[in-house]
């Protein structure tokens, strides 16, 4: 199934599509307000972009520095080349402690590696503790947004889920009441957990520490109560200096939700006395992306989700239509790197309007990369024949003024006289499935222009 087919399901519910669109636009508007309040915001974007470019250009050195520093702090470091190794390492650490109860705070990397099913199938109870993540875990769904994992659900959906799983009253839809129920339910899990798994927002080479940003405090509560903390980080999370965090913490929450900063910006550097801290450093295709000059900038992403909130296609098609851990514009440039065949329709799930690049806090040229992926996919024969041939035909038409003139004339008369059943034939003209054709003008622009020239002469 391609993006358009999956999106068609979401768009089928017009009210929900409109609601989804408006909700995300509201977040985008909050982002703008927060951004305008910081006079140097554009300078910060440039600095963040340069810091990330620099880090990627010395990634091996910084990885080694980070490892050395973290080990000096008493942290256990593990290296995982791919998802399977990441999962095996984490299961191994849990087993070494004879643990079965694990709490997890939000981590897109563990989603990417499908850690939960792996642990569950090995008899480990793993509970997602971010409210949105918990909701979708109970519903057995994937997150549909980087920062707002349950943004595709309405409060009625959450109420129904909690009625079924947490014993709240039937028909309860008050977010306050539902959140309180989740708080009580999850608190019991926090108190009982033996191991806590977290993601990593930033890893600092200079200190060997990792930084985790949350609003709910779920990472801190889990990590600081459990005996063992396992942090899973992609190699691209590195930044060189502690002071660089100032740049990124000023950008992240403002870009993501329009908050001045996340409620908790927590720095985990050493394990607490008598406890253990592990960091799993994961590649899973990232060094490959580093070697592709056109696409390496995607490794600068700090996972704020701003590109999703602003994307006219994402807002109207929903995150699940992308069928990838990271949806939206950034996901559409990350996914073909992982599996070009499976995700070949995603770089086309975009208008190329450039709005994603405009809001990106680390200045990734997202829309340019989407355009470049289309070229790569075209050359690799990964685009549908109908699109390929119609583009070829249009290409020829547009490069020949004579053919263009004749084609225009034919179209103007064609639309007028052809029967509706033919112009709107589903398989012949996909464009017209949800659109009406325009009323053809009497004359072409060129004819009109010629006429003007004659009358003024």
């Amino acid at each position, binding site marked *: 199934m391609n993006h358009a087919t999956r999106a068609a399901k979401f768009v089928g519910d017009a009210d929900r599509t409109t609601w989804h669109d408006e*909700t995300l636009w*509201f*977040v985008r508007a909050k982002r703008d307000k927060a951004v305008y309040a910081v006079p140097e915001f554009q*300078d910060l974007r440039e600095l963040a972009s*340069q810091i990330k*470019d*620099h880090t990627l*250009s*010395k*990634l*091996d050195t910084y*990885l080694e520095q980070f490892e050395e520093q973290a080990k000096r702090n008493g942290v256990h470091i593990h*290296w*995982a*080349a791919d998802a399977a*190794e990441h999962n095996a*390492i984490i299961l191994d650490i849990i087993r070494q402690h004879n643990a079965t109860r694990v709490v997890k705070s939000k981590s897109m990397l563990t989603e990417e590696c499908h850690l939960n099913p792996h642990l569950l199938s090995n008899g480990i109870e793993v509970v997602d503790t971010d409210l*949105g993540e918990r*909701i979708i875990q109970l519903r057995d769904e994937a997150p549909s947004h980087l920062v*707002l994992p*349950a943004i595709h659900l309405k*409060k009625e959906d*959450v109420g129904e889920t909690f009625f079924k799983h947490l014993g709240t009253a039937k028909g309860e839809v008050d*977010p306050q009441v539902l*959140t309180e129920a989740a708080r009580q339910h999850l*608190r019991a899990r926090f*108190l009982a957990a033996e191991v806590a798994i977290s993601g990593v927002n930033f890893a600092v080479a200079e200190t060997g520490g990792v930084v985790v940003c949350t*609003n*709910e*405090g*779920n990472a*801190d*509560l889990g990590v*600081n*109560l459990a005996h063992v903390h396992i942090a899973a980080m992609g*190699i691209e999370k590195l930044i*060189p200096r*502690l*002071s660089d*965090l*100032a*740049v990124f913490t*000023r950008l992240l929450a403002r870009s993501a*939700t329009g908050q*001045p*900063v*996340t*409620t*908790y*910006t*927590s720095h*985990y*550097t*050493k394990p*607490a*006395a008598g406890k253990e801290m592990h960091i799993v450093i994961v590649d899973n295709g990232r*060094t*490959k992306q*580093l070697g592709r000059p056109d696409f*390496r900038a995607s490794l600068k992403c700090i996972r704020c989700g701003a590109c999703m909130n602003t994307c006219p296609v994402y807002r109207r098609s929903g995150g699940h239509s992308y069928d990838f851990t990271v949806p939206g514009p950034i996901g559409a440039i990350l996914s073909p790197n992982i599996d070009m065949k499976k995700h070949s329709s995603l770089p086309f799930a975009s208008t190329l309007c450039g709005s994603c690049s405009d809001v990106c806090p680390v200045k990734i040229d997202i829309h340019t990369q989407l355009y470049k992926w289309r070229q790569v996919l075209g050359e690799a024969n990964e685009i549908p024949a109908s699109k390929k041939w119609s583009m070829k035909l249009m290409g020829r038409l547009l490069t020949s003024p004579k053919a263009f003139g004749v084609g225009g004339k034919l179209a103007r008369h064609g639309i007028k006289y052809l029967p509706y059943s033919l112009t709107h034939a589903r398989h012949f003209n996909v464009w017209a499935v949800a659109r009406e054709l325009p009323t053809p003008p009497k004359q072409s622009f060129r004819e009109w222009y010629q006429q003007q020239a004659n009358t003024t002469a």
Partner: protein
Amino acid sequence: MSSSREKILAAARANKPDEKPLPIVPDFGGDDSTERFTQVLTSIGGQVVWIDGPEQLQPVLKQLYPESRLSASPLFPGTVPVDALTSTEVLADVDLAVLPGEMGVAENGCIWLPEANMLHRALPTITQHLVLVLDHRRIVATMHQAYAQLPSTGGYGAFVAGPSKTADIEQSLVIGAHGARSLVVLLY
């Protein structure tokens, strides 16, 4: 798995672009007033209360939290003695934690709370209500100035900005997710 380590480092070395410079990050200045700090912290769900000095702490707390039974603090003898080895069961009952904040940041209302000021790493999030006591002269304008003043981040430390919150259900803001349900900053 040292073989994966070598593989990843070798691939990073082979695939990295030519070295790019590391930029110098300017200070940017900014507004470090208590007014700005108060305005931002209030807008994110926190509350600021002025006190004359740390000696005034207990009467003010009694007034603010008349219902509190189980408090923990390094600033006065609380009802629950907490240290790094306190059990989870005991921690779970604390309803009020009163901790010294190290530094405030006016642009976003956050307060730096190093491990040394927490009694137990989980205390600031497991308590039902959190009070941070802060010297108003320790407020800086931006995160740049805050990090410039941190010699290191210790074993653990957090910038805390307001009470725990979530907007995961239809973007409705709910205060009190998993961490503290409220945050009061006592400025002196």
